[in-house]
């Protein structure tokens, strides 16, 4: 039994200790917003925050989550309002198929929390998520707009 917090709620999960956090979220906790893309931390579709840090949950065993705080895409909105990054994704019409966007948004939220006004190189280095639809131009535009509102 592993105990941790997901989106500010305490959870206890009875899964084999090597089960990746991704599958615990999706299959045990029914939080299907976090996506499976590659299983080897290469695409970022499964990105969540683990104690505030962006983590690729497909390679994080649930046993490593004991006592930690996990935030998923479902936990991003607060008080009925979208997170500014989610709102920017609507304003700039970013998603296409949408499958990678939970992970993309979680990665961008973490980047902007660490660095409110990142340079283009910072963005390129931090946002390595794969989007097969090629929404990157709009991801860049949305980040630029978010950075200029906070700067």
């Amino acid at each position, binding site marked *: 039994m592993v105990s941790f917090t997901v989106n500010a709620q305490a959870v206890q999960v009875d899964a084999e200790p090597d*089960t990746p956090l991704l599958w615990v979220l999706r*299959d045990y906790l029914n939080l299907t917003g976090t996506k499976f893309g590659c299983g080897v931390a290469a*695409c970022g579709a499964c990105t969540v925050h683990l104690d505030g840090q962006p983590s690729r949950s497909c390679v994080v065993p649930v046993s490593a989550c004991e006592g930690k705080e996990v935030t998923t895409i*479902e936990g991003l909105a607060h008080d009925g309002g979208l997170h500014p990054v989610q709102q920017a994704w609507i304003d700039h019409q970013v*998603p296409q198929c949408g499958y990678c966007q*939970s992970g993309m948004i979680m990665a961008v939220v973490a980047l902007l929390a660490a660095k409110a006004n990142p340079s283009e190189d910072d963005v390129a280095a931090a946002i390595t998520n794969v989007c097969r639809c*090629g929404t990157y131009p709009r991801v860049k535009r949305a980040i630029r707009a978010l950075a200029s509102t906070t700067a």
Partner: protein
Amino acid sequence: MPSALPTPAKPRSKWRRRFLITAGVIGGAMAVGLWRLYRERDRLTPPAPLRARESEAILTAWIKIATDGRVVVQVPRQEMGQGVMTALPMLVAEELDADFAQVHFEQALVDPVYANATLLGDGVPFRPDDESWLGAIARVSQFKVGEVLGVMATGGSTSVRDAWEPMRRAGATARAMLLQAAANKLGVAITECTVSKGIVEHARSGRRAGFGELALEAARLPIPSDVAPKDPARFTLLGQSPQRLDIPVKVDGTAQFGMDVRLPNMVYAAIAQCPVFGGSLKSFNGDKARARPGVKGVLALPATSTSAAAVVAIAQHYWQARSALAEIEISWDEGPNAAHNTAQQRSRYESLLASDEVRIYDEAGSIDTAFASPPRLLEADYFVPYLAHATMEPINCTAVVRDGSCEVWVGNQSPTLVQWYAAKAAGIDSANVTVHTPFLGGGFGRRAEMDVVMQTVMLAAKLPDTPVQLIWSREEDIQHDVYRPMAMAKFRAALDSAGNVTAWYNRIVGQSCTGGLTARLLPAAASDAMKDKTNVDGAFDLPYALPNRKVEHVLTHEPVPVGFWRSVGHSYNAFFTECFLDECADAAGQDPYEFRRALLKERPRHWTVLETAARKAGWDNSLPPGVGRGIALAESFHTIVAQVAEVEVRDNAPVVRRIVCAVDCGFAMHPDIVVAQMESGILFGLTAALFGEITLEQGRVQQSNFPSYEMVRLAQTPEIEVHIVNSGVEHLGGIGEPGTPPVAPAVCNALFAVTGKRIRELPIRL
């Protein structure tokens, strides 16, 4: 010295082709005669299974209106990112004069009324500019055959083109019914009423009624069959870019993809398929796997025409199934293809560049005369590898079989095919199959395949009353795809002393995508007698003034399955032809843009698109040292796209800095989606140009996941500018695919400008 021209096949092929096409035309014409009157009305009448809530009225097959004024449009195509859940409702909303804020989408159920007729009409092997009676009749009759077959499918960039008539007509018809209901309710003449933003108004009395108040009454009226849609000059919504209706659920994690389906008592399955195409299962030992926690079973699945032989572990949770799968000892019979490898296949293709077994797809003038003693002769061979789709959402399907019926949840590009193949796998009638189509986490042609549906329903049939969700790993996805064909091309061109191309010869070698799909779906119908124009799309239909030309194809059969991959034949033929055309420009000592422009004098739409891209890119402006520009033009799916790439070389690798794109799809009904699809198509094509390569050794695909099958990421994304040219609704073209073909040649032509070296093979290696 260039080698001698390969000997062409005997002209019998021409007559044979005529015969086959004529037979098809007669069949099509009969279908037209039998069905025409019935079909005209049938596209409005709601299908019997279409249900509405008590508070909703059904107004034609395409529209429900609720008493609160919500307009719910039945969308017959699948959303894979291309924006169809917004674009198609707009067609209805425009004609209804609805308030778009009140418009919602619903996935249409599976019924022939929602068939995609355009997909087949586009498939006939005639150039799009072939205005002969034979070409026209073949196109129309194929379209009618498409309607009669009743297959719902999303592909070929056809969604808006196919929906343009029936969905606008449905909107106009429902509007007429609402108007009539308003006139009855208000006791006024219908001619004195107007409609705007979902409200009918009688101006003289100032009385108004909303769609919600009128819907139930309107639904009791007969459906008129003679309401014409608007004159495009009166469009108020089409041509605007309202926010996409599918985006809000895609930013908060609530969008439902196939893998997100959750059902009571559902079990999960993980799969290992025979690593060699065409192999079978010899034996397996699942004892260790069965002893693992949560495991419900270990099963073998036989190979079918659509799916590979496989072993499956089933468990309460996916990770348990996946972990158990690794514990199964499997012994495969690798079959006859165990030695297949890419290098041998390639050398065979090289020899086929001189084969006698060719089919001619386009021939004009006489190339022999021009090739006899040209002042200048050019020759070059080109090559592209197999490519995987790698949709972001790995392949998956969920199904339950109970009491002689089957329910399937799967991201798919043809719910009709899903219905047929689920029925086949479960051994039941397709009328007893219910198909649910959630959002697709990418499609690109991959989700037209029925492999995972066959596998999942075969499993579900073995576990009655238990919903099963089968999830392929990314490795299975990359290694068991239907691939974009590997292809080779040979070119020869004769130039006169003024630099005019006096002869153009192009031969392409490769497998047939349509043949591959037919062999998988309808093995009995598979035949080489049918020509497949997707082999030569983008090569046999060039817009350039090349009076003496011949384009032919050598069909190969390989153990590697091929399928439709975003832009299909255009994906390689645009690379081949636009790069070789650049070689011609260089040999003629001319600027590549001016050279193309001169060849497009008779093609004003192409000329304008090319000119727009060049002007917006600043073609004549100087560039920093080490940076080069390249241009390419391609018409595909009735849309014309030109792109100018700016490229430099850093650390011996190409860096694409900027791409300027001009696009004419006739009428950009939602300009922002057009821009998004150009960005998307460009980056899809750029991934193929820079990284894409599937190779085989010992019958096995060597790539397995994103580290070995790499993708363009944000860091490699160039600045992309898109400029829309609207030439008119009569030229309506598709938008999902046409952004892809020009990018590889534009980038390679730019690299030539920097390095002086021709790139004749993808992915680019400097």
